[in-house]
Protein backbone atom coordinates (compact mmCIF):
# COMPACT_ATOMS: atom_id res chain seq x y z
CA UNK A 1 0.00 0.00 0.00
CA UNK A 2 1.12 3.52 -0.75
CA UNK A 3 0.19 6.19 1.79
CA UNK A 4 0.57 9.93 1.28
CA UNK A 5 0.73 11.97 4.48
CA UNK A 6 0.13 15.72 4.34
CA UNK A 7 2.39 17.45 6.83
CA UNK A 8 2.61 21.10 7.68
CA UNK A 9 5.22 23.31 9.21
CA UNK A 10 3.72 25.81 11.65
CA UNK A 11 4.97 28.32 14.21
CA UNK A 12 5.60 26.66 17.55
CA UNK A 13 2.51 27.02 19.74
CA UNK A 14 4.72 27.21 22.83
CA UNK A 15 5.59 30.81 21.93
CA UNK A 16 3.48 33.90 21.22
CA UNK A 17 2.60 33.85 17.55
CA UNK A 18 2.32 37.01 15.50
CA UNK A 19 0.69 38.35 12.39
CA UNK A 20 2.53 40.95 10.37
CA UNK A 21 0.16 43.93 10.42
CA UNK A 22 1.52 45.27 7.12
CA UNK A 23 1.00 42.11 5.05
CA UNK A 24 -1.74 40.42 7.06
CA UNK A 25 0.32 37.25 6.88
CA UNK A 26 1.95 35.08 9.49
CA UNK A 27 5.14 36.60 10.84
CA UNK A 28 7.43 33.65 10.23
CA UNK A 29 10.44 35.32 11.80
CA UNK A 30 8.67 35.57 15.17
CA UNK A 31 8.74 31.85 15.99
CA UNK A 32 10.62 28.64 15.53
CA UNK A 33 8.96 26.52 12.88
CA UNK A 34 7.95 23.03 13.97
CA UNK A 35 6.06 20.18 12.37
CA UNK A 36 2.43 20.58 13.37
CA UNK A 37 1.77 18.06 16.10
CA UNK A 38 -1.41 16.72 14.53
CA UNK A 39 0.32 16.05 11.22
CA UNK A 40 3.01 14.15 13.15
CA UNK A 41 0.25 12.01 14.60
CA UNK A 42 -1.07 11.50 11.05
CA UNK A 43 2.38 10.26 10.06
CA UNK A 44 2.41 8.02 13.13
CA UNK A 45 -0.79 6.36 11.90
CA UNK A 46 0.87 5.66 8.54
CA UNK A 47 3.96 4.34 10.32
CA UNK A 48 1.88 1.87 12.33
CA UNK A 49 0.57 0.49 9.03
CA UNK A 50 4.15 0.15 7.84
CA UNK A 51 5.16 -1.52 11.12
CA UNK A 52 2.65 -4.26 10.34
CA UNK A 53 3.41 -4.52 6.65
CA UNK A 54 6.92 -3.58 5.60
CA UNK A 55 5.91 -3.29 1.94
CA UNK A 56 3.97 -0.10 2.82
CA UNK A 57 5.39 2.98 1.16
CA UNK A 58 4.94 6.37 2.84
CA UNK A 59 5.31 9.65 0.96
CA UNK A 60 5.12 12.88 2.92
CA UNK A 61 3.94 15.97 1.12
CA UNK A 62 4.22 19.56 2.22
CA UNK A 63 3.87 23.01 0.74
CA UNK A 64 5.83 25.79 2.35
CA UNK A 65 8.90 28.00 2.24
CA UNK A 66 12.45 26.68 1.92
CA UNK A 67 12.79 25.88 5.60
CA UNK A 68 9.83 23.47 5.36
CA UNK A 69 12.39 20.99 3.97
CA UNK A 70 13.29 20.43 7.62
CA UNK A 71 9.76 19.18 8.29
CA UNK A 72 10.10 16.72 5.42
CA UNK A 73 13.51 15.56 6.70
CA UNK A 74 12.10 15.02 10.16
CA UNK A 75 9.28 12.91 8.74
CA UNK A 76 11.84 10.86 6.78
CA UNK A 77 13.89 10.32 9.93
CA UNK A 78 10.76 9.06 11.67
CA UNK A 79 10.29 6.46 8.97
CA UNK A 80 8.63 7.92 5.86
CA UNK A 81 10.21 6.75 2.60
CA UNK A 82 10.22 9.87 0.45
CA UNK A 83 9.09 13.45 0.39
CA UNK A 84 7.58 16.00 -1.92
CA UNK A 85 8.12 19.66 -1.12
CA UNK A 86 6.07 22.16 -3.10
CA UNK A 87 8.26 25.25 -3.06
CA UNK A 88 7.45 28.34 -5.07
CA UNK A 89 7.71 32.05 -4.29
CA UNK A 90 4.37 32.58 -6.02
CA UNK A 91 2.73 30.60 -3.24
CA UNK A 92 3.78 32.90 -0.40
CA UNK A 93 0.64 33.84 1.53
CA UNK A 94 -1.46 31.36 -0.46
CA UNK A 95 -5.08 31.14 0.67
CA UNK A 96 -7.00 27.90 1.14
CA UNK A 97 -7.96 27.53 -2.54
CA UNK A 98 -4.46 28.04 -3.88
CA UNK A 99 -2.99 25.73 -1.23
CA UNK A 100 -5.48 22.96 -1.96
CA UNK A 101 -5.10 23.18 -5.72
CA UNK A 102 -1.32 22.87 -5.46
CA UNK A 103 -1.38 20.03 -2.95
CA UNK A 104 -3.88 18.22 -5.18
CA UNK A 105 -1.70 18.76 -8.25
CA UNK A 106 1.27 17.21 -6.46
CA UNK A 107 -0.76 14.30 -5.10
CA UNK A 108 -2.74 13.49 -8.23
CA UNK A 109 -0.15 11.36 -9.96
CA UNK A 110 1.60 9.60 -7.12
CA UNK A 111 -0.90 6.75 -7.08
CA UNK A 112 -1.49 6.63 -3.35
CA UNK A 113 -4.13 4.30 -1.93
CA UNK A 114 -4.59 6.36 1.16
CA UNK A 115 -4.14 10.03 2.05
CA UNK A 116 -3.83 11.04 5.71
CA UNK A 117 -3.88 14.57 7.11
CA UNK A 118 -4.56 16.35 10.38
CA UNK A 119 -8.13 17.60 10.87
CA UNK A 120 -6.91 21.17 11.28
CA UNK A 121 -3.62 22.98 11.72
CA UNK A 122 -2.71 24.99 14.78
CA UNK A 123 -2.01 28.16 12.79
CA UNK A 124 -4.82 28.39 10.24
CA UNK A 125 -7.46 26.34 12.03
CA UNK A 126 -9.76 26.42 9.00
CA UNK A 127 -9.77 22.64 8.90
CA UNK A 128 -10.68 22.53 5.22
CA UNK A 129 -7.62 21.82 3.10
CA UNK A 130 -7.95 18.00 3.25
CA UNK A 131 -11.61 18.18 2.16
CA UNK A 132 -10.65 20.49 -0.67
CA UNK A 133 -7.86 18.19 -1.81
CA UNK A 134 -10.30 15.27 -1.61
CA UNK A 135 -12.74 17.21 -3.79
CA UNK A 136 -10.02 17.97 -6.36
CA UNK A 137 -9.03 14.30 -6.47
CA UNK A 138 -12.59 12.96 -6.37
CA UNK A 139 -11.96 11.06 -3.12
CA UNK A 140 -14.30 10.18 -0.29
CA UNK A 141 -13.14 11.54 3.05
CA UNK A 142 -13.37 10.16 6.55
CA UNK A 143 -12.79 13.35 8.55
CA UNK A 144 -12.29 14.17 12.24
CA UNK A 145 -11.46 10.59 13.19
CA UNK A 146 -10.65 9.60 16.74
CA UNK A 147 -9.70 6.07 15.71
CA UNK A 148 -8.97 4.33 12.44
CA UNK A 149 -8.61 0.88 11.04
CA UNK A 150 -6.81 0.51 7.75
CA UNK A 151 -7.43 -2.59 5.68
CA UNK A 152 -6.13 -3.45 2.23
CA UNK A 153 -9.14 -2.21 0.29
CA UNK A 154 -10.88 0.03 2.77
CA UNK A 155 -10.51 2.27 5.78
CA UNK A 156 -12.90 2.78 8.64
CA UNK A 157 -13.00 4.55 11.95
CA UNK A 158 -14.89 6.55 14.50
CA UNK A 159 -15.67 10.12 13.53
CA UNK A 160 -16.37 12.68 16.23
CA UNK A 161 -18.70 15.58 15.48
CA UNK A 162 -20.63 18.07 17.60
CA UNK A 163 -23.73 15.89 17.27
CA UNK A 164 -22.15 12.62 18.36
CA UNK A 165 -19.95 9.92 16.97
CA UNK A 166 -20.29 7.95 13.77
CA UNK A 167 -18.70 4.74 12.58
CA UNK A 168 -17.65 5.53 9.03
CA UNK A 169 -16.08 3.58 6.20
CA UNK A 170 -14.81 4.13 2.68
CA UNK A 171 -13.24 2.06 -0.05
CA UNK A 172 -9.72 3.12 -0.98
CA UNK A 173 -8.44 5.41 -2.33
CA UNK A 174 -9.69 7.77 0.35
CA UNK A 175 -8.65 10.75 2.45
CA UNK A 176 -8.57 10.42 6.24
CA UNK A 177 -8.19 13.28 8.67
CA UNK A 178 -7.28 12.51 12.23
CA UNK A 179 -7.70 14.50 15.43
CA UNK A 180 -5.25 14.91 18.30
CA UNK A 181 -6.94 11.97 20.05
CA UNK A 182 -4.59 9.78 18.01
CA UNK A 183 -1.40 8.60 19.72
CA UNK A 184 1.61 10.86 19.85
CA UNK A 185 4.23 10.36 17.19
CA UNK A 186 7.42 8.39 17.79
CA UNK A 187 10.78 10.12 18.03
CA UNK A 188 13.30 9.72 15.26
CA UNK A 189 16.15 7.44 16.36
CA UNK A 190 19.80 7.71 15.36
CA UNK A 191 19.48 5.14 12.60
CA UNK A 192 16.44 6.95 11.26
CA UNK A 193 18.23 10.28 11.26
CA UNK A 194 21.23 8.86 9.39
CA UNK A 195 19.00 6.97 6.94
CA UNK A 196 16.89 10.03 6.19
CA UNK A 197 19.82 11.71 4.48
CA UNK A 198 19.70 9.14 1.68
CA UNK A 199 15.94 9.24 1.15
CA UNK A 200 14.66 11.17 -1.88
CA UNK A 201 12.93 14.53 -1.59
CA UNK A 202 11.46 16.03 -4.75
CA UNK A 203 11.20 19.79 -4.73
CA UNK A 204 8.47 20.79 -7.14
CA UNK A 205 7.17 24.17 -8.30
CA UNK A 206 3.57 25.40 -8.19
CA UNK A 207 1.50 23.39 -10.63
CA UNK A 208 -2.04 23.90 -9.34
CA UNK A 209 -4.45 26.09 -11.25
CA UNK A 210 -4.52 29.59 -9.80
CA UNK A 211 -8.09 30.31 -8.73
CA UNK A 212 -9.65 33.40 -10.29
CA UNK A 213 -10.50 34.88 -6.93
CA UNK A 214 -8.96 34.90 -3.49
CA UNK A 215 -9.37 36.16 0.04
CA UNK A 216 -7.71 39.43 0.95
CA UNK A 217 -6.87 40.82 4.37
CA UNK A 218 -8.09 44.37 4.96
CA UNK A 219 -6.64 45.10 8.37
CA UNK A 220 -5.07 43.53 11.44
CA UNK A 221 -5.34 44.80 14.99
CA UNK A 222 -3.52 43.43 17.99
CA UNK A 223 -5.28 43.13 21.31
CA UNK A 224 -3.38 44.58 24.24
CA UNK A 225 -2.01 41.78 26.44
CA UNK A 226 -3.92 40.83 29.57
CA UNK A 227 -2.40 41.71 32.88
CA UNK A 228 -2.47 39.77 36.11
CA UNK A 229 -4.98 40.87 38.71
CA UNK A 230 -5.17 40.21 42.42
CA UNK A 231 -3.72 37.07 43.98
CA UNK A 232 -4.98 35.59 47.25
CA UNK A 233 -3.02 32.98 49.13
CA UNK A 234 -5.58 30.70 50.74
CA UNK A 235 -5.48 31.01 54.51
CA UNK A 236 -9.01 29.76 54.92
CA UNK A 237 -10.65 32.94 53.68
CA UNK A 238 -9.99 32.65 49.95
CA UNK A 239 -13.36 31.07 49.20
CA UNK A 240 -15.14 34.04 50.79
CA UNK A 241 -12.81 36.38 48.91
CA UNK A 242 -13.75 34.67 45.65
CA UNK A 243 -17.48 34.89 46.30
CA UNK A 244 -17.16 38.58 47.29
CA UNK A 245 -15.22 39.23 44.10
CA UNK A 246 -17.90 37.57 41.96
CA UNK A 247 -20.61 39.54 43.75
CA UNK A 248 -18.73 42.83 43.30
CA UNK A 249 -18.32 42.07 39.57
CA UNK A 250 -22.04 41.24 39.42
CA UNK A 251 -21.21 37.78 38.18
CA UNK A 252 -23.48 36.10 40.72
Amino acid sequence: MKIAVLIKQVPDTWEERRIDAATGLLDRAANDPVVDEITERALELALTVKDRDKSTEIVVVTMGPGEATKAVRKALSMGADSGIHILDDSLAGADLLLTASNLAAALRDIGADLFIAGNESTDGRAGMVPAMVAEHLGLPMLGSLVSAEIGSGKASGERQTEAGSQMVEAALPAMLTITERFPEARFPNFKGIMGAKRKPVATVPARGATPASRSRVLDVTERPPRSAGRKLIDDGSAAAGLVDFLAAQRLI
Partner: protein
Amino acid sequence: MSDILVHIELTRSGHVGAAARGLLAAAARLGTPIALTVSDVPLATEAVARLGELGAVRVHAVTSDATQAILATPLVDALGAAVAAYAPAAVLLSGSADGREAAGRLAVRAGGVLLADVVDVAAHDGQIIAEHSVFGGSFTVHAVADGGLPIITVRQGAIDEQAPAAIPELLKADMPAPPGNQAAVLSFSPAPETSARPELRGAATVVSGGRGIGSEANFALVEQLADALGGAVGASRAAVDAGYIAQTAQVGQTGVTVAPQLYIALGISGAIQHRAGMQSSKTIVAINQDEDAPIFEVADLGIVGDVFTVVPQVIELLKNRT
Protein backbone atom coordinates in the same frame (compact mmCIF):
# COMPACT_ATOMS: atom_id res chain seq x y z
CA MET B 1 -31.40 42.79 -1.60
CA SER B 2 -29.26 39.86 -2.61
CA ASP B 3 -29.85 36.34 -1.39
CA ILE B 4 -27.67 34.81 1.31
CA LEU B 5 -27.74 31.03 1.33
CA VAL B 6 -27.50 29.55 4.82
CA HIS B 7 -26.98 25.86 5.51
CA ILE B 8 -29.04 24.77 8.50
CA GLU B 9 -27.89 21.67 10.34
CA LEU B 10 -30.77 19.57 11.60
CA THR B 11 -30.62 17.32 14.61
CA ARG B 12 -31.08 13.58 14.11
CA SER B 13 -34.74 13.94 14.96
CA GLY B 14 -35.19 16.65 12.31
CA HIS B 15 -35.22 19.70 14.57
CA VAL B 16 -33.45 22.94 13.72
CA GLY B 17 -29.93 22.81 15.18
CA ALA B 18 -28.50 25.30 17.65
CA ALA B 19 -26.28 27.07 15.12
CA ALA B 20 -29.24 28.23 13.00
CA ARG B 21 -30.08 31.28 15.11
CA GLY B 22 -26.70 33.00 14.81
CA LEU B 23 -26.22 32.01 11.17
CA LEU B 24 -29.60 33.42 10.10
CA ALA B 25 -28.95 36.59 12.10
CA ALA B 26 -25.62 37.02 10.33
CA ALA B 27 -27.29 36.38 6.96
CA ALA B 28 -30.02 38.93 7.67
CA ARG B 29 -27.34 41.60 8.07
CA LEU B 30 -25.97 40.80 4.63
CA GLY B 31 -29.13 40.27 2.59
CA THR B 32 -32.17 38.01 2.33
CA PRO B 33 -31.65 34.79 4.30
CA ILE B 34 -32.48 31.57 2.47
CA ALA B 35 -32.29 28.50 4.69
CA LEU B 36 -31.14 25.29 3.03
CA THR B 37 -31.88 22.00 4.76
CA VAL B 38 -31.01 18.49 3.62
CA SER B 39 -32.82 15.59 5.22
CA ASP B 40 -33.91 12.06 4.43
CA VAL B 41 -37.55 12.72 5.29
CA PRO B 42 -39.46 15.88 4.31
CA LEU B 43 -38.77 18.82 6.60
CA ALA B 44 -41.35 19.01 9.39
CA THR B 45 -43.79 21.94 9.35
CA GLU B 46 -42.61 23.01 12.78
CA ALA B 47 -39.01 23.17 11.57
CA VAL B 48 -40.11 25.47 8.73
CA ALA B 49 -41.95 27.66 11.24
CA ARG B 50 -38.91 27.73 13.53
CA LEU B 51 -36.68 28.84 10.65
CA GLY B 52 -39.16 31.64 9.95
CA GLU B 53 -38.99 32.72 13.58
CA LEU B 54 -35.22 32.88 13.22
CA GLY B 55 -35.45 35.07 10.13
CA ALA B 56 -35.46 32.75 7.09
CA VAL B 57 -37.34 34.42 4.25
CA ARG B 58 -37.27 31.25 2.19
CA VAL B 59 -36.71 27.63 3.20
CA HIS B 60 -35.19 25.47 0.52
CA ALA B 61 -35.82 21.95 1.82
CA VAL B 62 -33.97 19.20 0.00
CA THR B 63 -34.79 15.57 0.60
CA SER B 64 -32.22 12.94 -0.22
CA ASP B 65 -32.28 9.31 0.88
CA ALA B 66 -28.52 9.36 1.17
CA THR B 67 -28.10 12.03 3.85
CA GLN B 68 -27.92 9.68 6.83
CA ALA B 69 -25.90 7.02 5.05
CA ILE B 70 -23.31 9.05 3.15
CA LEU B 71 -20.98 11.70 4.55
CA ALA B 72 -20.82 15.24 3.17
CA THR B 73 -21.48 14.71 -0.55
CA PRO B 74 -25.31 14.86 -0.47
CA LEU B 75 -24.98 18.21 1.30
CA VAL B 76 -22.34 19.47 -1.14
CA ASP B 77 -24.57 18.43 -4.06
CA ALA B 78 -27.51 20.29 -2.54
CA LEU B 79 -25.42 23.38 -1.87
CA GLY B 80 -24.02 23.31 -5.40
CA ALA B 81 -27.50 23.13 -6.91
CA ALA B 82 -28.78 25.94 -4.66
CA VAL B 83 -25.81 28.16 -5.52
CA ALA B 84 -26.60 27.63 -9.22
CA ALA B 85 -30.30 28.34 -8.66
CA TYR B 86 -30.06 31.46 -6.49
CA ALA B 87 -26.68 32.93 -7.40
CA PRO B 88 -26.42 34.13 -3.77
CA ALA B 89 -24.11 36.91 -2.62
CA ALA B 90 -22.67 34.56 0.01
CA VAL B 91 -23.03 31.11 1.53
CA LEU B 92 -22.96 30.72 5.31
CA LEU B 93 -22.29 27.48 7.15
CA SER B 94 -21.55 26.51 10.71
CA GLY B 95 -17.89 25.87 11.54
CA SER B 96 -18.79 22.33 12.59
CA ALA B 97 -17.02 19.21 11.32
CA ASP B 98 -19.74 18.74 8.69
CA GLY B 99 -19.95 22.43 7.82
CA ARG B 100 -16.22 22.71 7.30
CA GLU B 101 -15.99 19.72 4.99
CA ALA B 102 -18.99 20.89 2.96
CA ALA B 103 -17.62 24.44 2.69
CA GLY B 104 -14.22 23.23 1.51
CA ARG B 105 -15.66 20.93 -1.11
CA LEU B 106 -18.18 23.52 -2.27
CA ALA B 107 -15.47 26.15 -2.73
CA VAL B 108 -13.54 23.82 -5.03
CA ARG B 109 -16.65 22.90 -6.99
CA ALA B 110 -18.29 26.30 -7.24
CA GLY B 111 -15.07 28.32 -7.44
CA GLY B 112 -15.89 30.34 -4.32
CA VAL B 113 -13.58 32.02 -1.84
CA LEU B 114 -13.42 30.62 1.69
CA LEU B 115 -13.60 32.84 4.73
CA ALA B 116 -13.12 30.34 7.54
CA ASP B 117 -13.74 30.41 11.29
CA VAL B 118 -15.37 33.81 11.12
CA VAL B 119 -16.59 35.44 14.35
CA ASP B 120 -18.54 38.31 12.80
CA VAL B 121 -19.73 39.60 9.42
CA ALA B 122 -20.79 42.98 8.10
CA ALA B 123 -21.79 44.52 4.79
CA HIS B 124 -19.93 47.65 3.82
CA ASP B 125 -20.24 49.44 0.45
CA GLY B 126 -21.74 46.34 -1.10
CA GLN B 127 -18.88 44.18 0.12
CA ILE B 128 -19.04 41.45 2.73
CA ILE B 129 -16.42 41.84 5.42
CA ALA B 130 -15.54 38.90 7.64
CA GLU B 131 -13.93 39.23 11.05
CA HIS B 132 -11.52 36.56 12.27
CA SER B 133 -10.13 36.19 15.75
CA VAL B 134 -6.65 34.74 15.39
CA PHE B 135 -4.17 33.09 17.76
CA GLY B 136 -6.49 32.89 20.73
CA GLY B 137 -7.91 36.33 20.16
CA SER B 138 -4.51 38.06 20.15
CA PHE B 139 -5.27 39.47 16.70
CA THR B 140 -8.45 40.60 15.00
CA VAL B 141 -8.30 40.35 11.22
CA HIS B 142 -10.81 41.65 8.68
CA ALA B 143 -10.89 40.01 5.29
CA VAL B 144 -12.93 40.02 2.09
CA ALA B 145 -13.39 37.66 -0.84
CA ASP B 146 -11.91 39.31 -3.90
CA GLY B 147 -14.01 38.55 -6.94
CA GLY B 148 -15.59 35.23 -6.00
CA LEU B 149 -18.56 33.87 -4.08
CA PRO B 150 -17.75 34.20 -0.37
CA ILE B 151 -18.27 30.87 1.41
CA ILE B 152 -18.20 31.66 5.10
CA THR B 153 -17.96 29.28 8.03
CA VAL B 154 -19.02 30.91 11.28
CA ARG B 155 -17.39 29.92 14.56
CA GLN B 156 -19.97 28.20 16.71
CA GLY B 157 -21.39 30.38 19.45
CA ALA B 158 -19.70 33.53 18.09
CA ILE B 159 -22.84 35.35 16.96
CA ASP B 160 -25.43 35.65 19.70
CA GLU B 161 -28.21 37.46 17.95
CA GLN B 162 -31.60 36.81 16.41
CA ALA B 163 -32.90 38.18 13.14
CA PRO B 164 -36.41 39.62 12.85
CA ALA B 165 -38.94 36.87 12.22
CA ALA B 166 -40.30 36.21 8.74
CA ILE B 167 -43.06 34.10 7.23
CA PRO B 168 -40.99 31.81 5.08
CA GLU B 169 -41.81 30.63 1.62
CA LEU B 170 -41.19 26.87 1.37
CA LEU B 171 -39.53 25.34 -1.65
CA LYS B 172 -39.04 21.59 -1.85
CA ALA B 173 -36.53 19.70 -3.94
CA ASP B 174 -35.47 16.08 -4.30
CA MET B 175 -31.97 14.92 -4.91
CA PRO B 176 -30.60 11.59 -6.09
CA ALA B 177 -27.88 9.82 -4.12
CA PRO B 178 -24.38 10.71 -5.28
CA PRO B 179 -22.72 8.07 -7.49
CA GLY B 180 -19.27 6.54 -7.08
CA ASN B 181 -17.06 5.74 -4.10
CA GLN B 182 -18.56 7.54 -1.10
CA ALA B 183 -17.80 7.67 2.61
CA ALA B 184 -20.47 5.58 4.29
CA VAL B 185 -21.94 6.09 7.75
CA LEU B 186 -22.38 2.68 9.36
CA SER B 187 -23.80 3.80 12.68
CA PHE B 188 -24.33 6.87 14.81
CA SER B 189 -24.46 7.42 18.53
CA PRO B 190 -25.66 10.84 19.61
CA ALA B 191 -23.65 12.90 22.09
CA PRO B 192 -25.17 12.53 25.56
CA GLU B 193 -27.64 15.29 26.34
CA THR B 194 -25.90 17.34 29.01
CA SER B 195 -28.97 17.81 31.18
CA ALA B 196 -29.82 21.40 31.96
CA ARG B 197 -26.22 22.58 31.70
CA PRO B 198 -25.58 25.23 29.03
CA GLU B 199 -23.55 24.53 25.90
CA LEU B 200 -19.85 25.28 26.32
CA ARG B 201 -19.84 27.45 23.20
CA GLY B 202 -21.62 30.68 23.92
CA ALA B 203 -22.05 30.04 27.67
CA ALA B 204 -21.92 33.09 29.95
CA THR B 205 -19.99 31.19 32.62
CA VAL B 206 -17.50 28.38 32.09
CA VAL B 207 -15.87 26.33 34.84
CA SER B 208 -12.96 24.21 33.61
CA GLY B 209 -10.92 21.53 35.29
CA GLY B 210 -7.39 20.38 34.54
CA ARG B 211 -4.99 17.63 35.44
CA GLY B 212 -4.96 18.97 38.99
CA ILE B 213 -8.46 17.55 39.46
CA GLY B 214 -6.79 14.18 39.56
CA SER B 215 -9.49 11.73 38.49
CA GLU B 216 -12.75 11.23 36.65
CA ALA B 217 -14.58 10.87 39.99
CA ASN B 218 -13.09 14.11 41.31
CA PHE B 219 -14.23 15.91 38.18
CA ALA B 220 -17.71 16.03 39.77
CA LEU B 221 -16.35 18.92 41.81
CA VAL B 222 -15.89 20.97 38.62
CA GLU B 223 -19.44 20.10 37.56
CA GLN B 224 -20.84 21.03 40.96
CA LEU B 225 -19.28 24.48 40.84
CA ALA B 226 -20.48 24.92 37.24
CA ASP B 227 -24.01 23.98 38.31
CA ALA B 228 -23.90 26.31 41.31
CA LEU B 229 -23.06 29.14 38.90
CA GLY B 230 -25.36 27.99 36.10
CA GLY B 231 -22.31 27.56 33.90
CA ALA B 232 -20.92 25.16 31.34
CA VAL B 233 -18.13 22.67 31.99
CA GLY B 234 -14.78 22.86 30.22
CA ALA B 235 -11.42 21.11 30.55
CA SER B 236 -7.77 21.27 29.65
CA ARG B 237 -6.32 18.83 27.13
CA ALA B 238 -4.49 17.05 29.93
CA ALA B 239 -7.81 16.39 31.69
CA VAL B 240 -9.33 15.10 28.44
CA ASP B 241 -6.30 12.93 27.69
CA ALA B 242 -6.50 11.48 31.19
CA GLY B 243 -10.12 10.52 30.54
CA TYR B 244 -11.70 12.74 33.20
CA ILE B 245 -14.16 14.13 30.68
CA ALA B 246 -15.21 13.94 27.00
CA GLN B 247 -13.06 15.70 24.45
CA THR B 248 -15.93 17.95 23.41
CA ALA B 249 -15.22 19.85 26.65
CA GLN B 250 -11.64 20.72 25.69
CA VAL B 251 -10.88 24.42 25.74
CA GLY B 252 -7.84 25.73 23.93
CA GLN B 253 -5.69 25.85 20.85
CA THR B 254 -7.04 22.59 19.46
CA GLY B 255 -10.31 22.62 21.38
CA VAL B 256 -13.18 25.02 21.76
CA THR B 257 -12.55 28.76 21.95
CA VAL B 258 -14.69 30.42 24.59
CA ALA B 259 -15.11 34.05 25.62
CA PRO B 260 -17.60 34.00 28.52
CA GLN B 261 -18.30 36.72 31.06
CA LEU B 262 -16.69 34.50 33.69
CA TYR B 263 -14.10 31.74 33.25
CA ILE B 264 -12.94 29.74 36.25
CA ALA B 265 -9.89 27.50 35.86
CA LEU B 266 -9.47 24.78 38.48
CA GLY B 267 -6.19 22.88 38.68
CA ILE B 268 -5.10 24.15 35.27
CA SER B 269 -1.53 25.38 34.83
CA GLY B 270 -2.40 27.76 32.02
CA ALA B 271 -0.17 26.48 29.23
CA ILE B 272 -0.13 28.85 26.28
CA GLN B 273 -2.29 26.43 24.26
CA HIS B 274 -4.96 26.45 26.95
CA ARG B 275 -4.88 30.23 27.27
CA ALA B 276 -5.41 30.49 23.51
CA GLY B 277 -8.90 29.14 24.05
CA MET B 278 -9.99 31.29 26.97
CA GLN B 279 -7.92 34.44 27.29
CA SER B 280 -10.64 36.57 25.66
CA SER B 281 -12.95 35.86 28.59
CA LYS B 282 -14.23 38.98 30.31
CA THR B 283 -13.25 37.93 33.83
CA ILE B 284 -10.87 35.08 34.66
CA VAL B 285 -10.57 33.38 38.02
CA ALA B 286 -8.00 30.65 38.70
CA ILE B 287 -7.41 28.32 41.61
CA ASN B 288 -4.06 26.57 41.60
CA GLN B 289 -1.68 25.31 44.27
CA ASP B 290 1.36 26.50 42.41
CA GLU B 291 1.95 30.19 43.01
CA ASP B 292 3.95 30.44 39.79
CA ALA B 293 1.39 28.78 37.52
CA PRO B 294 1.16 30.79 34.27
CA ILE B 295 -2.65 30.88 34.52
CA PHE B 296 -2.21 33.59 37.18
CA GLU B 297 -0.67 35.89 34.53
CA VAL B 298 -4.10 36.24 32.91
CA ALA B 299 -6.33 35.86 35.97
CA ASP B 300 -8.24 38.84 37.34
CA LEU B 301 -8.46 36.95 40.60
CA GLY B 302 -5.99 34.20 41.41
CA ILE B 303 -6.27 31.94 44.41
CA VAL B 304 -3.20 30.04 45.48
CA GLY B 305 -4.72 27.06 47.17
CA ASP B 306 -6.02 23.52 46.96
CA VAL B 307 -9.11 23.13 44.79
CA PHE B 308 -10.38 20.37 47.09
CA THR B 309 -10.37 22.80 50.02
CA VAL B 310 -11.47 26.00 48.32
CA VAL B 311 -14.11 24.80 45.83
CA PRO B 312 -16.37 22.98 48.32
CA GLN B 313 -16.32 26.14 50.49
CA VAL B 314 -17.23 28.28 47.49
CA ILE B 315 -20.13 25.98 46.60
CA GLU B 316 -21.35 26.15 50.22
CA LEU B 317 -21.15 29.96 50.28
CA LEU B 318 -23.01 30.20 46.97
CA LYS B 319 -25.76 27.97 48.34
CA ASN B 320 -26.11 30.14 51.43
CA ARG B 321 -26.53 33.26 49.35
CA THR B 322 -29.80 32.10 47.86
